[in-house]
């Protein structure tokens, strides 16, 4: 009995064709059902017909589950997706759901979607109205920045990319100056170019900034400032001087204990109360300070992890060479500690980028905020899906690229043999 119903190498000739046929039928059925909306196995009673592909496929996969069949591709298949009954079921279930969900998604994204036109009335199909994105694209990228001045944002970013690009190809010696320029001088030149007010450039107030470019500006500045502050806080937390240590601990735990949104609220409504009457600090700067301090606390904890992971011998060796505290940290400890925690640093920076949309609480609008504005425009009601899918895609690409880059960097800098 057991021998007859157990597929094995002996009866491979009878089981394999039957199994393959059954699996094939089940897939064809699901496929036709999904893409052409036609039920091949419809002559069965309706409730059974629904589960039939699953049952057919399951039996088929059972029949072709032959150990050491001698056929290479079959063995690989069995090992990876068909090793036992549960796996066979899960495989079928996942594949069927994927096949079923392709056509609606494809329809919505491309086939039934609308690409041509300039108003909402052009969107007659059932699918996505990409016209919305097309019309508002400029706003999504630049916010309310005046159209005539947008070349300034473009050129600021282009120059940045150009310098970064060139710095990859110059010699090590020059590279150092490039990096110093990028960190200490360029940010201020770039911000001068974008905000204007001098060199004959028209002044554009920060309230008009927005869209994806604001996301980049905020992320870039916050990353630039939060990193050194985080390193100092981490050193402070490990310091042997009690006052500095406790102040660092208090500072770090305070920021880490509260949500960013309350920190932004604080910068918007509470911070002005702390300043002399009449002083006004730009909204963008306040937000930048809030995000920087917030992320610096997280950065500090990451860096502290690296500092703690270093063996004591490194400290002792540095001291025995007669190095002082700062030289020891700058030349021996930090380079090693930071390398250890690249994944942690990357995660913190990623979190920072993902946190930028929160600036809506103070009324600044980056990409997500601009979409919120566009979808409430009376002429474009009901476009939330398109807008958020677009924003999600943009952020996903940025964040995925960042995480991939950090993984590469980790591999490149790894000194393990």
């Amino acid at each position: 009995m057991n021998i007859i119903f157990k597929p094995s190498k002996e009866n491979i000739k009878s089981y394999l064709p039957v199994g393959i046929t059954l699996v094939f039928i089940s897939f064809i059925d699901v496929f036709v059902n999904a893409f052409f909306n036609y039920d091949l196995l419809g002559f069965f009673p309706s409730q059974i017909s629904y589960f039939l592909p699953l049952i057919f496929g399951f039996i088929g996969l059972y029949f072709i589950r032959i150990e050491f069949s001698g056929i290479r591709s079959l063995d690989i298949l069995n090992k990876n997706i068909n090793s036992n009954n549960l796996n066979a079921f899960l495989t079928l279930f996942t594949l069927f759901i994927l096949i079923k969900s392709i056509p609606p998604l494809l329809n919505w994204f491309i086939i039934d979607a609308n690409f041509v036109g300039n108003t909402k009335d052009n969107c007659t199909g059932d699918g996505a109205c990409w016209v919305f994105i097309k019309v508002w694209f400029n706003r999504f990228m630049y916010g309310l920045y005046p159209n005539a001045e947008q070349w300034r944002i473009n050129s600021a970013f282009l120059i940045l990319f150009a310098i970064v690009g060139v710095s990859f190809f110059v010699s090590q010696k020059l590279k150092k100056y490039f990096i110093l320029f990028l960190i200490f001088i360029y940010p201020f030149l770039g911000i001068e170019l974008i905000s204007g007010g001098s060199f004959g450039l028209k002044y554009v107030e920060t309230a008009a900034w927005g869209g994806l470019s604001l996301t980049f500006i905020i992320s870039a500045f916050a990353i630039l400032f939060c990193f050194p502050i985080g390193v100092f806080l981490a050193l402070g937390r490990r310091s042997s001087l009690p006052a500095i240590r406790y102040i660092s601990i208090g500072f770090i735990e305070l920021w880490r204990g509260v949500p960013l949104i309350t920190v932004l609220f604080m910068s918007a409504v509470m911070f002005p109360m702390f300043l002399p009457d009449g002083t006004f600090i730009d909204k963008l700067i306040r937000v930048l300070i809030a995000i920087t301090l917030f992320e610096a606390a997280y950065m500090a904890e990451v860096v502290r992890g690296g500092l703690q992971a270093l063996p004591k011998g490194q400290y002792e060796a540095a001291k025995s060479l007669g190095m002082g505290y700062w030289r020891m940290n700058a030349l021996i400890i930090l380079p090693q500690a930071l390398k250890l925690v690249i994944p942690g640093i990357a995660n913190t920076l990623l979190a920072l980028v993902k946190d930028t949309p929160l600036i809506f609480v103070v009324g600044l609008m980056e990409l997500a905020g601009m979409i919120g504005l566009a979808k409430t425009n009376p002429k474009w009601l009901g476009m939330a899906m398109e807008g958020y899918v677009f924003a999600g895609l943009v952020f996903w690409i940025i964040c995925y690229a960042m995480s991939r880059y950090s993984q590469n960097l980790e591999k490149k800098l790894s000194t393990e043999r």
Partner: protein
Amino acid sequence: MIFKKFSTENKKVRDFIPQAITVLALLSVIIYFATNAQINMGNRGISFGFGFLNQEASFDITFSMIEYDGSHSYGRAFLVGLLNTILVSAIGIFFATIAGVIVGVSRLSDNYLIAKVAEWYVEIFRNIPLILQIFFWYFAALRALPLPENGINFNDISFLTIKGWYVPKFIWTNFNIFLLSIIAAFIAIYFINSYATKQREQFGKQLPTTIISLSTLILVPLITFLFLGVSLTFEYPVLKQLSPTVYTYEGGVSIIPELIALALALSMYTATFIAENVRAGILGVSKGQKEAAASIGLNKNQILKLVVMPQALRIIIPPTTNQYLNLTKNSSLAAAIAYPDIVLVFAGTALMQTGRAIEIISITMLTYLTLSISISIFMNWYNKKMAIKEK
């Protein structure tokens, strides 16, 4: 010369100077801010104090777990917001844990497809800002649901509509007795387990504790139903016409779409991080442990239960608690879609009405801070308890 002596030879002085400078700088900043705040508040005619918490709030909150209306105080409104925050965090933590464990285990599945799907789930949902996910669910996905009159009908028991999810209301009689019986069952299980451990350690006898515990948990509350007058009935939501075009459901409990969107986004986002923790934890148990367990004759379930899981949990739990904390803090994004959590109710509406920025923001931040610090104290205690005691 004197300076040199101070700075290099006398360690005490050398250590003292930077500390004194830091403390003085910090103090002067605080004093500067405090004086400014005092002047500013004086200009606006308000004085620092928490008396406003007893004043009448006179605003409504759309969703509240305790009795609340405009005639209650600001203190009460704070409590409503806090409870709503705790509610959405608890729901989020529950589902994030389940989804996270499933996805984390799936990533290690020997089924290539399942592992790939799980991996892409993590890559997709981890790399999209949480706020966008909340917006997506709230403004795009849940807005596509039908109006109440054509709500998605789950067997006439519950209805999913654009206005929320209507579920039956539980109506208990003698709920206290039921609750006590559950507590009693847990106490009984604790004693059964400690007795079983003793038996095992002294006589090597294995008692079927899982079955006994489960049956206790089912039987004891069942007894209250049969003999102690506890009963449970359901109040089902019923469609009702308010005007020719407006329909609504009456009875039952309405789960507002804000809560659904927030809980959904929070749990799907946090699940990716928990999944990575679970994966790292299981991978962190060395292969030798499993082989050693197998070689002393444990079966597959015993290996998982007695050898792999205890060690994996030691790696999984600390970062996962951190994620729970993050989820709770992230629940403050509720303010973006008007779910009445503590930030929206207290730091939003109450602040607008009273203008007491300093007090209200401090209370809000202190609440979160208390939550975080108590969890991290618990974590430190737990880590110390669970740390491998090496000899």
